[in-house]
């Protein structure tokens, strides 16, 4: 009786570690499996293929005159395309080192061609569309754009100068197809 008990004890030690291994590996496989099963249910919320397919927009620049802005739609968002005047370009360059830049950035780094300022027309605070595209609209204290929702002021380079927005207006990826045509996205 005692012999068989000690024999069981001996195998019991082996059994225990073997079982521990089985428990841990089963639980690990189960956890990974559950994670893999959950992912499709999360990822289905991300943009679908047809939404992603609409991700570039071509703009003809020919009809835009100096000092004029147009708004085009790219991925359901407004994109501001502004043909800047010489004064605006000079002002933007002059203020590269201004002390009140909240998100310091050189004007030259924000454009590919100095006269064409192309940026996503969405306030970086909470997503409203800033005013200043039309001549009749307020342009804010820095002559660029003004967001009416929470009072953010952007300059002639689209940089945030005053108000709650933390970042400059975003520059989308774009490339000039020719002198008069640009592809956004």
């Amino acid at each position, binding site marked *: 009786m005692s012999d068989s008990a000690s024999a069981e004890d001996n195998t019991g030690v082996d059994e225990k570690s073997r079982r521990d291994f089985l428990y841990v590996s089963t639980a690990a496989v189960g956890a990974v499996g559950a994670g893999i099963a959950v992912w499709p249910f*999360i990822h289905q*919320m*991300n*943009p*679908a293929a047809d*939404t992603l397919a609409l*991700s570039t927009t071509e703009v003809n620049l020919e009809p835009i005159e100096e000092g004029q802005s147009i*708004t085009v*739609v790219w*991925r*359901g*968002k*407004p994109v501001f395309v502004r043909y800047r005047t010489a004064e605006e370009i000079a002002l933007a360059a002059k203020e590269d080192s201004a002390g009140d830049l*909240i998100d310091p950035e050189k004007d030259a780094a924000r454009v590919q061609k100095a006269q064409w300022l192309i940026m996503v027309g969405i306030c970086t*605070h*909470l*997503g*409203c*569309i800033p005013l200043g595209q039309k001549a009749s609209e307020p342009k804010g204290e820095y002559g660029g754009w003004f967001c*009416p*929702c*929470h*009072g953010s002021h952007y300059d002639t380079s689209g940089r945030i100068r005053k108000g*709650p*927005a*933390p970042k400059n207006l975003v520059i989308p990826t774009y490339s000039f197809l020719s002198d008069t045509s640009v592809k956004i996205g």
Partner: protein
Amino acid sequence: MSRQFKNPILNWVEYRLPIISFIDDSVGSGYPTPKNLNYWWNFGSLAGIVLVIMLVSGIVLAMHYTANVDYAFNSIERIMRDVNYGWLIRYIHMNGGSMFFIVVYIHLFRGMYYGSYKAPRELLWMIGVIILLAMMATAFMGYVLPWGQMSFWGATVITNLFSAIPIVGDSIVTLLWGGFSVDNPTLNRFFALHYLLPFVIVGLVIIHLWALHEHKSNNPLGVDIKGEQDLIPFHPYYTIKDLYGISAFLMFFMFFVFFAPNFFGEPDNYIPADPMVTPPHIVPEWYFLPYYAILRAFTGDFIVYQVISLGGLLMSAKLAGVLAMFASILLLLFLPWLDGSKVRSSKFRPYYAMAFWVFFIDSLVLGYIGGKPAEGAFIVIGQIATAYYFAHLLVIIPILSRLERPKPIPESISAAVTAAHASKAAE
């Protein structure tokens, strides 16, 4: 558990499924209730009734609504003009949202005034706070469905709050939208969730009632139930009182439905959504205004922001505003421990009562500021009111509750009632 009835059919059912005694023990003569509850205790049952009204009117509206950016606005107009009684059902649902928040906010302040959140009702209170959060999510998504200008821009501003989260913020926003802006996928999922969440709220309410029934209702005196002499059966005493309250409340509710159906709404939401034009003044629904004021109070020069972000190093003002807005509700979860006083009711805590009323007025001020444009004096008042909101919860209540010497509390509910009668007889 199982009981005997005169009616043999009831006995047959009760023997197999004791549902009759279960209902009677929950909301009938088998549920003992403190005998001194005042009218502020009506608002729990009122909230339950509004939930049912919202479910019924909402399910009916879903039979006529189309969740697609091209048809949503028009399908609402069709409900208003062509569907039989569609105008009535939609106005009930629209104003019902506002009524729900009025009733729940009174219910919440009732709990704060009479200390209903204290032991042993902490979980009851916390489940209530979670119900409030679920209600807010439901209301927000419901407001997006008509696809008017305020629907669209409200959705844009609120979903953009999540972009304040460092590193993963933008990915979360894209995930919520299902695209690169608020668009058709967003509308579809909001509709699905707006239909789902009310049933989640029903589940939470059942847990809320379960916790309530374990230790019974608190009462205006805030003293524990000592025995049978403190109690009366829920039915017929409180069923009839709740019905009376419901009648009065329905008159208030129906006044708005029939005579001022758009009183709580924004005219801009009768303009179809235009992703290319932001309305000049975006305001959320009135029940979100205090939180909106807290969100906007956090600007770079706000002293509270400067302190908590270590002079702007730790986080942006935008992130601080978002965190503060969520904290303003989540802090309520900890109220049972922030308040260290053993005495529940404000009747015996004169200084706490004063602090309570200042906090109540502060909440109203925040609501007023949230509806005003962020400029001039409104910014300063909003920042002071925001600072006070957090000071009340994090400084005033913890200290005051541990220093204040409460007035003597009555021995029991019935002792207080007999004493009041005795002193009246003596006069």
